[in-house]
């Protein structure tokens, strides 16, 4: 044997010793018992063989039979590989079992594995929790005994049917505690088709069914409601649209869903609606906000909108519910009532309330703008006489003619009112005292024209008082009216009381408008 071979053997001996030491320290970590022993033998056998060869050469012990130890090397490698493959397979099986157990235990539904006699062989944690016991305590029991308190399987039991049919089965079952379960049975079969067990998966759907019923009720209410019930996103895009909204606006759901709700209102109201949507998206509720809207036909309608934010679980607004009520009829009635309360039905002028309401507002505007105003108080002359001699019908006609004269005399923007039986008042806006004579002359001229154009036994004429509005001097319309009223009576007194008949006609005397 050469020196080189001896050195190699010595180093191999050291390497084998190191390997054995490492094996002794960590053999439990990766390898099973058999594969570990095979590895140790693989480390030691070459050393033993070399030792024996060395003894045979130097001490003539052993002989050629030592060479036959070579045959153990492939055997040891084979055994090592074989046992290692077994280790891996067992580890994989163990891991699979563990993963399966973790997956099934993490499921919220009940999972049971039962043999064909319906004995429970395995139960997950949810099953044990539902039954109020430990999982291992369910083993060997029958599910119908544990959950239903029965001695026989339930009617239409999906586990029993799965076992009998060899096909997956599903059913809804209710336990005595009024819990509703969705139960499914999945047969486990051998390759020859024989059913060797059934996996039962059951889920508590009591809350789900209740929610479905409530949803159904709400859906029926929404569908039957005459009000428009609209769901929109926080950006204002229509998401849902009930038949009530369809009737109100004329759009079908498929025509409006996905479009912005601002399209339902006229252009001038869209910014307002956007602002409202933004406020509701911030969590505010806006109730009964009336605004004009547009039906699909182009017809204008008045709608009372109620906007409510819809919150998600984290209390963030994720949508807006809009309830729209058609109040067109109410608005029209309200406008009509307002008009009736402010307008004199005989002459069509403002009545006393209307005159004071509009006049007071106009004076405030005039004060802010430093605009002058002229208040003309006009009393229709001879009204009592007309009523007494010609009747109230003719008296009404005189009042209507007087109103017409006033309308012809003053601008459309001036406020004209009949504030008493035969008393009229006009607030001429942006008109100074310097125009007083012009106004009175125009009034007299128009009255004269009226008298010439009609064939009546009397003439329309007015006694007039005029007061000029000075923001610093007058504090109210009443004050201004009192001043004009006093002037009017002065003029009236200045007129002679006599009436000169003119061809059966009566007329007032003295200066009159």
């Amino acid at each position, binding site marked *: 044997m050469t020196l080189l071979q001896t050195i190699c053997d010595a180093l191999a001996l050291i390497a084998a010793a190191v390997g054995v030491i490492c094996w002794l320290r960590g053999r439990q970590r990766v390898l099973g018992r058999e594969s570990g022993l095979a590895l140790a033998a*693989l480390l030691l056998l070459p050393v033993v063989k070399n030792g024996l060869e060395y003894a045979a050469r130097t001490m003539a012990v052993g002989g050629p039979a030592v060479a036959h130890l070579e045959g153990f090397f492939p055997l040891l490698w084979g055994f090592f590989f074989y046992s290692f493959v077994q280790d891996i397979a067992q580890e994989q099986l163990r891991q699979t079992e563990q993963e399966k157990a973790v997956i099934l235990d993490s499921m919220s539904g009940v999972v049971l594995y039962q043999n064909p006699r319906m004995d429970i062989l395995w139960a997950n944690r949810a099953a044990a929790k539902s039954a109020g016991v430990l999982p291992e305590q369910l083993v060997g029991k029958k599910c119908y005994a544990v959950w239903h308190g029965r001695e026989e399987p339930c009617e239409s039991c999906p586990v029993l049917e799965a076992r009998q049919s060899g096909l997956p089965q599903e059913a809804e079952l209710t336990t005595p505690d009024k819990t509703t379960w969705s139960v499914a049975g999945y047969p486990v079969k051998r390759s020859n088709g024989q059913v060797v067990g059934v996996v039962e998966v059951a889920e508590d759907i009591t809350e789900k069914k209740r929610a479905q019923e409530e949803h159904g009720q709400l859906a029926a209410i929404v569908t039957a409601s005459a009000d428009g019930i609209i769901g929109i996103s926080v950006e204002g895009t229509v998401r849902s649209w009930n038949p009530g909204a369809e009737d109100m606006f004329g759009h079908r759901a498929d025509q409006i869903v996905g479009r912005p709700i601002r399209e339902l209102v006229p252009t001038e109201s869209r910014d307002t609606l956007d602002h409202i949507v933004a406020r509701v998206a911030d969590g505010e509720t806006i109730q009964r906000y009336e605004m004009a809207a547009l039906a699909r036909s182009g017809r204008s309608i008045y709608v009372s909108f109620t906007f409510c934010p819809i919150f998600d679980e984290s209390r963030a607004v994720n949508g807006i519910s809009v309830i729209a009520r058609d109040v067109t009829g109410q608005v029209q009635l309200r406008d009509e009532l307002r008009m009736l309360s402010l307008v004199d039905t005989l002459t069509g002028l403002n009545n006393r309330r209307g005159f004071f309401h509009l006049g007071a507002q106009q004076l405030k505007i005039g004060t802010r703008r430093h605009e002058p105003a002229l208040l003309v108080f006009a009393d229709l002359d001879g009204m009592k006489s007309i009523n007494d001699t010609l009747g109230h019908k003719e008296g009404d006609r005189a009042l209507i003619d007087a109103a017409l004269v006033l309308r012809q005399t003053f601008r459309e923007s001036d406020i004209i009112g009949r504030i008493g039986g035969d008393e009229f008042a006009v607030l001429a806006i942006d008109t100074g005292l310097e125009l007083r004579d012009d106004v009175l002359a125009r009034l007299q001229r128009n009255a004269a024209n009226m008298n010439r154009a009609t064939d009546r036994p009397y003439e329309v004429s007015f006694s007039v008082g005029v007061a000029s509005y000075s923001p610093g001097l007058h504090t109210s319309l009443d004050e201004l009216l009192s001043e004009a009223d006093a002037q009017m009576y002065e003029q009236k007194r200045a007129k002679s009381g006599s009436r000169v008949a003119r061809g059966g006609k009566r007329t007032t005397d003295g200066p009159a408008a």
Partner: protein
Amino acid sequence: MALEVKLLISLLWVAVCGFALLHRARLRQLTFWGLLLAALIGFLLNWAAVALEDVFWTDVWGVVEHATHLASAALLAAWCWAALVRTPKHDAAADDM
């Protein structure tokens, strides 16, 4: 060594290699599988040297035999250290992933 014995041992080696090839997917899961494979190849070369030693170049194959034996022993020792001592089991599993 008789020719029949050599043939038998060679057949055993072929069987071992076939088994390793058949189950290579699982064997690859063994941590530091490359070291172990190299050690196996070392043993195969060792056997080749033993078989050829009696045919020709006796001295040369004798040196090769002992050198491959040294290499195989070193590789096995290295695997033992790497897989059994240095790498805990959880790390080995992580390596596999």
